């Protein structure tokens, strides 16, 4: 589908007669020379840069651009001459009355002949997302991590041989591009602005998604090669540029490999915190986006990771679970939540309870006391691999003291009423430790 049309009108007539305007067709329709798509994933937004060569005459030129059946935001339209910019004056962009999806640039040219121009605009309907597949080694110490991006074009416009760039980051948007594209008048109208609420309804209905690259039209005679994706930081965003060009007709999507790293060291991390996760430990797959983990080249965009494990010598797999993945900057820790487990067990038990240090007023009423609780924490790793376990305990008061004993690993105070124990558990092992928690109440809080 080719909906974007450019027409160059050598208009001598002063006025454009409205009813016939859309039919003015006497003109060259220069095709796209180059197309660049910069696609965002935090919003339904794509910046399109469209290079075309126009033949201008000296004097006044009118350039007509129409975009019926697309999802272009007409207020974002811009045109820039790439050469002779000082000789070409763009007076204005007019959205003529009673004609939809059409704009006319009024240009005064000091030169005659071919002028390359660049049109830029924002469109909705093209999106991309990242997803991942992780394959753990049998010992679960390393993982092969494959990243993919999937680009989907539902914009109503075919983009052929487009340089495709993907933006990772969260942009601030005031209006949805899809809504701006549906407006009756590009900038609305003074007074009440009725905006059609049906966005993309018709487009979504006929949405057909094709899963793999095999289904895409292929360029005959070329041996496909794996494409590189270059990654670079810009402002608060990351820009991924896919090598070469892509053709993504409307309605299609395309999956592209983003990276493939084998042997990423991972830690089997289990977390236990009753207040947050309930009575079962939750399994996390932990690694870091840095050099030592063979990553760290660029941030990792958020997405879903499906984790598998190689279970035997013939590379059979088991499915370990899936986790959504937030955006991970370079050098940040990654923790993938694979859900609660039963093969690592944490059992906290209250072993002793007593009260002490009562204080009384002159009439003999109780004004303060201490409560002393002894807890035993038993942990079991029933797995064949070593794991790391983090246990958090929350106290319901800010007035407390704690004494640890036994095999409690690394201990730290997390905040005013939370502490954390970190333990390493070898395969098939048990550990236990105790803590005595003293909490202060009433007047006994005064000095603690």
């Amino acid at each position, binding site marked *: 589908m080719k909906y974007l049309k450019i027409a160059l009108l050598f208009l001598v007539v002063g006025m454009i007669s409205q009813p016939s305007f859309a039919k003015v067709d006497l003109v060259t329709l220069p095709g796209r020379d180059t197309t660049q798509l*910069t696609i965002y994933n935090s919003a339904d937004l794509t910046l399109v840069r469209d290079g075309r060569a126009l033949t201008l005459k000296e004097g006044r030129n009118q350039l007509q651009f129409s975009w019926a059946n697309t999802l272009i935001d007409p207020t974002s339209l811009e045109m820039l001459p790439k050469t002779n910019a000082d000789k070409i004056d763009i007076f204005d962009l007019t959205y003529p009355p009673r004609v939809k999806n059409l704009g006319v640039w009024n240009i005064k040219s000091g030169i005659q002949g071919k002028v390359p121009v660049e049109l830029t605009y924002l469109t909705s309907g093209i999106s991309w997302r990242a997803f991942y597949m992780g394959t753990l080694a049998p010992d679960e110490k390393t993982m092969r991590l494959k990243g993919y991006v999937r680009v989907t074009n539902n914009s109503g416009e075919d983009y052929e041989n487009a340089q495709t760039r993907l933006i990772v*980051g969260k*942009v601030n948007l005031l209006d949805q591009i899809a809504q701006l594209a549906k407006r009756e008048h590009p*900038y609305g109208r003074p007074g009440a602005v009725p905006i059609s609420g049906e966005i993309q309804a018709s487009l979504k209905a006929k949405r057909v998604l094709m899963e793999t690259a095999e289904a895409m039209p292929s360029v005959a005679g070329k041996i496909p090669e794996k494409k590189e994706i270059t990654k670079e*930081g810009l402002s608060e965003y990351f820009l991924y540029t896919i090598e070469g060009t892509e053709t993504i007709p409307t309605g299609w999507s395309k999956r592209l490999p983003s990276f493939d790293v084998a042997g990423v060291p991972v830690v089997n991390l289990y977390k236990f915190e009753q207040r947050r996760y309930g009575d079962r430990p939750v399994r996390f797959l932990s690694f870091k986006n840095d050099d030592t983990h063979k990553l760290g080249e660029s*941030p990792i965009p958020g997405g879903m990771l499906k984790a598998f494990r190689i279970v035997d010598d013939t590379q059979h797999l088991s499915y370990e679970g899936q986790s959504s993945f937030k955006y991970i*900057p370079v050098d940040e820790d990654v923790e993938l*939540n694979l859900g609660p487990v039963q093969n690592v067990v944490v059992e906290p038990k209250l072993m002793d309870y007593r009260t002490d240090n009562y204080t009384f007023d002159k009439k003999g009423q109780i004004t303060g006391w201490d409560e002393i609780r002894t807890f035993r924490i038993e942990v079991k790793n029933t797995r064949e691999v070593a794991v790391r376990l983090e246990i958090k305990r929350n106290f319901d008061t800010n007035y407390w003291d704690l004494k640890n004993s036994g095999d409690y690993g690394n201990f730290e105070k997390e905040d*005013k009423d939370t502490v954390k124990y970190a333990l390493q558990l070898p395969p098939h092992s048990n550990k236990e430790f105790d803590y005595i928690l003293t909490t202060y109440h009433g007047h006994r809080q005064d000095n603690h």
Partner: protein
Amino acid sequence: MVGLTAPFMARARTTLVALPERDATVIRLDNPMATLIEEERQLTLQKGLNKIDFSWKGVSIDADSIRLQIIDHPGQVTLLNVSYPPNEAALVWEIASESDFVETVRISYLLGNIDRLITYKAVADKAETAIDFRSYLVLRNFSGENFDNAMVKLDDGEAFKQAIDHEETKRLLFLKAGNVPITKIWRWDSAQLPWDPETLNNKNVGIPVSYRIVNNKTSGLGGHALWGGKARIFQVDGHRSTIFLGEDVSGLVPVGEKMELYIGDSRDIVVTQRKMKEKQINIRRTQHKSNPRIVLYDMDEEITAKIENFKDTPAVLTMIQHIPGEWKMVNCNLEYSRKDANTLEFEIDLPARRDTGMAVVQLKMNYHRLNLRP
């Protein structure tokens, strides 16, 4: 043309004087609430009483705003009265003239459904130190009236000639300034953003990022106030192209004031804030022998914040902390300024990430909230 009958043509009710085509027309857009039209016409007046029809069918004119000004012979030509015919968008002027004159009059009125918007486009350089700043004027005419050759007047600057038809929208470049310096601001407010990103189950906390532009001569601006409007911000990418950074809407920015445009969120700066201590101290109780009640106490509180910069460039984080009520700082390892009684602002220099890992800055502040009552 749909809805575009010439509304100011003379009507044949009292055909003493025909209202001729207008000459100079000015569209005044200086008031964002209403648009004032001023048009001049030449009336051929006869000695004695003249009646002039003025009608505006299909055009939303505020009838009470219509004024007629005599330009050439104000002493000899007098507007006597104005009458309104029934059920018509029209009026009739009765004008007394002391002689036969070809008189220039100026008719002015408030016209509805015609206005202007301002939009901005800014393209930042790769280092984010300056922007190429453009402002566009968007004229929207849905008034029912065509203007073939009007002077459009904004609140300052030169008036310019412009034709605009009914239901037409035009976008014109209106202001252009290159190399306008910008300051990039990251802002973390403890009252607005979550304290502990780990508890958010795989969601990033975005720290709002803004560009600050000063409307003054040093910036290459400062000629007049910058009107409020939507701004779209782009950045050159070093590959002869740009990326879209974000958009925001600005209010009116008078000369000398700052425009702050929120472009998007940074996820490369991570703040983890925790309250490490919150204890009652200096407790004062009633003198009751039995069950003395607490009447007054102070609260000893300690806040720590770990700020990690994962960016490979340095940044200055503006951190806002709030302490309610009466308080005194006991100890704080970073400098701050008091923005008001309960708001503290820290300007925290964050070095760039190094090969050894992200850059970390720790804030630790211990303060007492004073004289609290249960």
